[in-house]
């Protein structure tokens, strides 16, 4: 076999890999965002780490920031203390309704590892244990990822990757005052 044909075979293999990936992507529906801006936010419901249950459907009337994370994820652990500070700023006085709510959605869904991270990072914001359905519905292919849902239950903003405290606060404020 000549060097020319081996070289061509390598280039053909790269082209074939490209074609196979396209076919698989189409099959997975990843060429489109499942939750575009303005679409109805998919359901998020699950047990809260500190007891009780969370349901996104019960949060109409104020914005909700869903912060997808996992205890093993370094950037998530770096982001969460800032998210906690934003959550505290937004927390409502007793008896009044909150301006906006932040919920950390643990994509791993394991209470033991979530509790360890909660204690280590000093988190008091609500943590929902996801069984994988919320992460799948929102096409969470990387974490951390934050989806902000407006008061009407529609997807309003998306932050891919680690969000700073200011960035998160600004994004929530934009959704509150469109």
């Amino acid at each position: 076999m000549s060097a020319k044909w081996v070289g061509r075979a390598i280039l053909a293999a790269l082209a074939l890999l490209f074609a196979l990936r396209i076919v698989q992507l189409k099959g997975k529906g990843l060429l489109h965002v499942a939750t575009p801006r303005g679409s109805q936010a998919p359901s998020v419901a699950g047990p809260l780490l500190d007891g009780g249950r969370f349901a996104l459907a019960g949060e109409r009337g104020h914005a909700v920031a869903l912060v997808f994370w996992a205890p093993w994820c370094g950037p998530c652990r770096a982001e969460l203390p800032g998210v906690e500070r934003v959550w505290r700023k937004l927390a409502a006085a007793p008896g009044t309704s909150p301006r906006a709510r932040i919920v950390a959605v643990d994509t791993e869904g394991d209470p033991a590892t979530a509790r360890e991270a909660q204690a280590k990072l000093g988190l008091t914001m609500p943590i929902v244990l996801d069984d994988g359905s919320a992460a799948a519905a929102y096409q969470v292919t990387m974490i951390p990822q934050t989806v902000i849902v407006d008061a009407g239950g529609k997807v309003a903003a998306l932050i891919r990757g680690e969000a700073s405290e200011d960035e998160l606060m600004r994004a929530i404020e934009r959704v509150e005052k469109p």
Partner: protein
Amino acid sequence: MTFDERIGGVLIAPRRTFARLAAGEARASDVAWLLVFRLVAGELDRFARALAVLREFGAGAAAQEVLMVSSAVLPDIVGILAAGVMLQLFCKAKHAFDVAAYAWIPYLTVQVVAALAFTATRHAPTPREQSIVQLAGVAWALVAWTLALVEARKAEPAAEAQS
């Protein structure tokens, strides 16, 4: 030598090919093109996702994804640069740095063949399988780099005599 002859030659006739590359037929753009092809073919799912996010939520949301995609070839770039610097240290031939970059082609070949096999069979590689693929690629690249060094050193006196 043409582009495909240079790539194929490194894999099936490395000594002869490295000798010709060291004699002045090496092109730095060959490896740069292959890096682009590898990024596009290997990380297409992330690119597609970044494009979809860009369309719906703007550049800010897509930027992080694009950064992560680009960082996928960072180990390759570091490896190519390290191989070039090392070869330049051991050999003063004019094209030593460019010649060393071709030693990355065997690593790329192993990666592409493995990715093709995993994608075609829809098999998600286990960490052990990933390690085996990495090791095989690095081992073949090291052999190629050693041959590149030998041939570049041989080319050194010839180049000096010419000058």
